[in-house]
């Protein structure tokens, strides 16, 4: 079913165009991004049920204007139906409010944004529109899955099932651009908590995509598996710290791509001289088996859109081509500063926040190897699975990734021995240069959120094939 645009934004578009027209008489570049996003979280645990509007729910606008030196922004969510001249004057005063108090300060300078005339739209499609399924039906399905999870084992002391769905509508209006898009992304989680009386463990499996309520059914075959694997963690050993041959599962490959050369090539970091990558453009940074893509058009997942939060159309950027770092991903202002083409990666947590260069879909391309051959090639090592978190270090190229577990590989075979939890640390080019095998399949995951540092959360996806490399584990 095709997703429909927010009626509110459609109705407000004429006013936005009028405001841009009025303010353009004074400022040489003016744009407004309008967002009307409705998100719902459904969560069922052993003892509680929650149905709430989500973090992503919002309705508001961000105005950007060239102030003669650089760009000022004002975020607002009240809009009069008439007296637009008066309201435009109020917006103009807000944009200029820094000028007196910060007079005498040093300012970075930017050229005026030159735009091509574009009028375009995008409406996503899903199998089942979430708003056509009642809360009663959704909660009943989640409760059934939760009850099945709880019945799996006495070790399961809580089982959580989550379904989050977001219907996003955005318009972007500037002097030359008129863009609108509306799509739905959803994610779901199975989350098993287990105990043996003295210690607890947990494991989750996530599901995501440009999908609607159909994603709930995807959880169905995995309920017991998550509970059983979580219980197995209770008897997992701890790793002897050291460097090992490892095979990374697709979600681990994804998190490595994301942390290593996703955050590492966000070009607002180039502008701040915070990215080591800038010194390595057109130089080898990884094994020649590695080709990496990034972009709203690089894949179909939760961050696949027509235009970003600065009105730039999404692209498919080749970050690493056969081991050679080619370019980065950029927001509009960083591209303007660096004299490069914007890649459609200017994203905001919300209309209330600034746009930064952010990832969308980050993937390492598949290779030619078979997973079984990769396992067979290892005398002693580990398969890393179930990623939990990661952290970037664009300046010094350190990497930290945490995983729920690893499975021991001995004499070319996966064993029953699992270790948990695992932290992988290292130097990004070393980790990527040691990639010696890449599988011929791939998966993409888009659950959770990504922060820039410790804030500015946005949705994105990452993934890839199985890869074989060497990694320091602790």
């Amino acid at each position, binding site marked *: 079913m095709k997703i429909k645009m927010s009626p*509110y934004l459609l109705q407000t578009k004429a006013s936005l165009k009028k405001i841009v027209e009025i303010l353009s008489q004074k400022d040489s570049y003016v744009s407004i991004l309008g967002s009307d996003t409705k998100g719902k979280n459904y969560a069922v645990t*052993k003892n509680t*049920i*929650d*149905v*709430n509007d989500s*973090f992503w*729910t*919002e*309705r*508001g606008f961000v105005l950007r204007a060239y*102030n003669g030196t650089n*760009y*000022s922004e*004002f*975020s*607002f*969510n009240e*809009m009069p139906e008439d007296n637009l001249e008066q309201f435009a004057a109020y917006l103009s005063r*807000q944009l200029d*409010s*820094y000028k*007196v*108090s*910060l007079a005498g*300060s*040093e*300012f*970075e300078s930017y050229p005026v944004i030159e735009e091509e005339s574009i009028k375009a739209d995008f409406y996503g499609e899903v199998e089942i529109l979430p708003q056509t399924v*009642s*809360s*009663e039906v959704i909660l009943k399905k989640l409760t059934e899955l939760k009850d099945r999870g709880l019945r799996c084992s006495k070790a399961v002391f*809580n089982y959580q099932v989550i379904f989050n769905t977001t219907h996003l509508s955005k318009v972007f209006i500037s002097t030359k651009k008129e863009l609108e898009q509306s799509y739905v992304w959803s994610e779901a989680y199975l989350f098993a*908590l287990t105990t043996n009386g003295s*210690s607890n*463990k*947990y494991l989750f499996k996530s599901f995501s995509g440009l999908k609607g309520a159909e994603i709930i059914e995807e959880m169905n075959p995995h309920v017991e598996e998550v509970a059983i694997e979580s219980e197995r963690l209770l008897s997992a050993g701890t790793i002897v*710290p*050291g460097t090992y041959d490892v095979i990374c599962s697709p979600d681990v490959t994804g998190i490595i791509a994301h942390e290593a050369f996703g955050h590492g090539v966000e070009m607002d970091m180039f502008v*701040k*001289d*915070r990215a080591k990558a800038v010194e390595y453009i057109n130089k080898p940074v990884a094994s020649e088996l590695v080709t990496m893509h990034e972009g709203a058009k690089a894949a179909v997942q939760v961050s696949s859109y027509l235009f970003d939060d600065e009105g730039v159309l999404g692209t498919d950027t080749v970050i690493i081509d056969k081991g050679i770092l080619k370019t980065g991903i950029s927001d509009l*202002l960083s591209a303007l500063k660096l004299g490069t083409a914007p890649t459609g990666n200017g994203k905001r947590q919300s209309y*209330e926040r*600034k746009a930064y260069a952010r990832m969308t879909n980050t993937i390492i391309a598949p290779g030619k190897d078979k997973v079984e051959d990769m396992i067979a090639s290892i005398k002693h090592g580990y398969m890393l699975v179930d990623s939990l978190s990661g*952290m970037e270090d664009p*300046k*010094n190229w*350190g*990497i*930290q990734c*945490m995983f729920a577990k690893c499975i021991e590989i001995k004499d070319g075979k996966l064993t029953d021995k699992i270790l948990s*939890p695992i*932290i992988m*640390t290292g130097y990004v080019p070393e980790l990527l240069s040691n990639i010696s095998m890449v599988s011929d399949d791939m998966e993409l995951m888009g659950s959770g959120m990504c922060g820039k*540092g*410790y804030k500015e*959360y946005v949705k994105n996806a990452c993934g890839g094939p199985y890869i074989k490399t060497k990694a*320091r584990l*602790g």
Partner: protein
Amino acid sequence: MLNRIIDILKSNKDISDWKLVQNVTEANELFLIKKAIDMPRTKRVVNIEVTVYRDFEENGSKYRGSSIVKIPPTMTDEEIASTIKEGVFAATFVKNEYYPLPSRSDRELIAAESSFDTAPLNEWMPKIKDALYKYDNFKNGCINSAEIFLNKNDTTIINSKGINISFTGYSGHIEFIANWKEEGEEIELYKELMFSDFDEENLSGTAQEMLEMSKEKVNTKPTPNLGSFPVIITGSPAAELLKHYYIQSNAKHVYNHISTAKPSESIQGSDIKGDKINMVLDPAVKNSPVSAPVDNDGVTLARQSIIKDGVLQKYWGTTQYSHYLNVEPTGRINNMIFEGGSKTISEMRAEPYLEIAAFSDFQLSPMTGEFAGEIRLGWYFDGTTRTTVSGGSISGNLNALHNNMYLSKELQQCVAKEVFETLNYSGPKAVMLYNVLVAGN
């Protein structure tokens, strides 16, 4: 707007109770590269959250369903009514144990004072910027970039039981990157500051301290593979570690079996050899952006002793989860205060140790007690030489180590963050643990 929403809530006969929280936020923001302003931003937004409650009975048991809906100020009456109706319908299937809503309290509201009250936000921005950059005059190091946010939040909480409270708070937030370069590669360190009052000395001093730390990081060596080793965690990672006890003593986590902590029992396991935890929650800590007279339910907040000499005194929690555990609700207080311990940091350094001041991302699971983090800046002392190190990682399980944990006498105030939530920490500047696994070169 609020009256329109309240009228609609009152006219819906399916609603048993309701709560409305409005936040009007005005903000000034500066994004800087070196000392130059890259972008000035301002904001004025009105965010309204309505919680609708619907009571029902099944098999003689009473239940209370609820659902939170967001009402933007541009919604028409029809849209508001429809959004609320959807929320009420959803609440019908939210089968949670019954709990009452708080009523109007006669307790005095404790309000934190702020000098930000004395002038418009935009007049404070140059003062904050200048304070941050006061000591940024080194030859080889500088503040690479900074983001400064100053918010004025006017909060109104109204519920169907007679609560109607309004108060103003300020939240300042700074993120900055300190760089240093000598002969080798330039390095950087990240720092986050949160505040609710203008404390020039604190802002300047923190920036200076980070610049000095970044200077130290220039000359690091790889962290050795130390196996099981004594570790001193200093600065904000110490807050992240001790936050574990805040989470473990929360009624919601106890109800959901994430925590097994019980009142009158040790929260640090048995046979405690090191320092014992003492934690109070205080709603009115000076210069804390999360100080507030009431919580989000409108419960009037007061100082609470939660852990004394390692023993849990009581759970803290919201009205809902406190009711489930049959304890008096403290309300949600986001300022945690830990007492200092028995050793100074110099005394902790009397034996071989690995001291860590900065991680890439220190993580501690409240469910398992497992912690880990990559080392961005630390010092390894082998008994004779103290070497600056980076790289490698530490890991361990706090539940297995906290009966032999030492807290520094020196104290600090900093942020301890949860996703979507900020906590303010006042407490020991350093925590020492034994038998932590150190993976290095």
